[in-house]
């Protein structure tokens, strides 16, 4: 049944997000087309506006996926639509899994669209070289391979956003439990859970520092003369901790949902 739920959740997101994807690519193409070697002031202004719109669309894709994931979650599980959702012959776990997978999928899609937009709008040999030099400077300083740096940076950002979304899901569940239908509690609980999750990651990294002096140095020193390997450990540790927190939070969400709902 998960695949059937997912089919409709993905359809919902495609309907709502596709316009932003199209606009992102549209502005990327116009930015590229207007990037003429010799351009008038007017063209230059239009290009800057187009470029600004594309960046705004990329930010919009990320924010919109977050907002729509939360709204879909709330509408589907606690508003009028919940009369259908909760009477479907599917488990609560699958209801939750479908929403979670939908979010993950659309973050990937958004990420790909953002990369594609940036590539269309700004790719040139010079820009590519400048980007490579920039990344190499960082990775050399941190004693990391470039591929590792890119992979871990994307992973952490991805997990961080996913963690924020899941805090929202848990906030909605607990908020409705405490005060049925009132959105204020959901927001408050979501924010508190997010702070707790962030504090937990920080606390656990700090605790790890007792076993690894290079990591502890990150907390103790205000200078930048620290062991570069500590950044690598910190990055891997953060990714692992985020994964654990996301996993634990999804279990809490499912336990709470399985305890039953009270729809107004």
């Amino acid at each position: 049944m998960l695949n059937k739920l997912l089919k409709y959740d993905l359809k919902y997101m495609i309907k709502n997000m596709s316009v932003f994807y199209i606009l992102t690519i549209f502005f990327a193409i116009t930015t590229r087309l207007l990037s003429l070697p010799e351009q008038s002031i007017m063209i230059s202004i239009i290009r800057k506006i187009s470029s600004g719109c594309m960046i705004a669309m990329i930010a919009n894709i990320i924010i919109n996926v977050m907002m729509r994931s939360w709204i879909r979650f709330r509408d589907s599980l606690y508003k009028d639509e919940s009369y259908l959702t909760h009477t479907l012959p599917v488990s609560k776990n699958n209801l939750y899994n479908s929403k979670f997978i939908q979010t993950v999928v659309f973050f990937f899609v958004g990420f790909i669209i953002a990369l594609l937009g940036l590539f269309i709008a700004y790719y040139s040999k010079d820009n590519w070289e400048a980007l490579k030099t920039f990344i190499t400077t960082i990775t050399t300083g941190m004693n990391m391979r470039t591929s590792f740096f890119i992979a871990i940076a994307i992973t952490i950002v991805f997990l961080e956003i996913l963690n924020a979304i899941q805090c929202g899901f848990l906030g909605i569940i607990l908020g409705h439990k405490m005060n049925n239908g009132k959105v204020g509690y959901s927001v408050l609980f979501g924010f508190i859970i997010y702070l707790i999750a962030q504090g937990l990651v920080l606390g656990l990294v700090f605790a790890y520092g007792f076993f690894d002096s290079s990591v502890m140095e990150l907390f103790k020193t205000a200078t930048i003369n620290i062991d570069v390997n500590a950044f690598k450990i910190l990055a891997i540790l953060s990714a692992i901790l985020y994964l654990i927190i996301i996993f634990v939070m999804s279990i809490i969400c499912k336990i709470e949902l399985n305890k039953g709902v009270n729809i107004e």
Partner: protein
Amino acid sequence: MELLEVKHLNKSFGKKQILKDVSFSLTGGKIIGLLGKNGAGKSTLIKLINDLLTPTSGEILVNGKKVGIESKKVISYLPERTYLNKQMKVSEVIEYFKDFYDDFDEKKAKRLLKDLDLDIEERLTKMSKGMQEKVQLVLVMSREADLYILDEPLGGVDPATRDYILDTILSNFKENASVVISTHLISDIERILDEVIFIDKGKIILQSGTDELREKENASIDDIFRRMFKC
């Protein structure tokens, strides 16, 4: 085995107790009227049977099993509100029901929609509330369920449509299935009921066959209801 068994069911919201020690059972092949005044607890009871509310205490069994995936496979529920995703077309909602309910009869749904002059390519958002309610009723009655639970199916509709709805209900439920209709418009549904359950202030105050009750009280169900619930 009983089709539906409710045992010592209690439901409270905070300090307010809505259902108080409700117990009853239903067998198959009957049309049952769940009758009571507004706020008597009818919708709360129905929502509990459909897993939309969690009992404070007590137990609900459908075909001997607790409320869950198995009970949802055999209960076809019409809520008192419009609950379909309004962005969808009627044809998409039919597809949705077909996907999730093995007992959904697509041909029957399309035939009933055609009888009602409803365009299956129309989006729900473009339909009036009354039309959306008709679509919902068609979807619910197009399932081959064991138990149909209809919460206020006649609320807010004109008398002519009421007759159509009742006829649709009568002619479309599976043999040996039961239909529970919650309403306070008793005179409209009295003719089709086999059994009544009167609920007041969260308690079941009467469960009886309609013929027995009429004979015993020498009055129509509507009159008996009015007498019992006189303010």
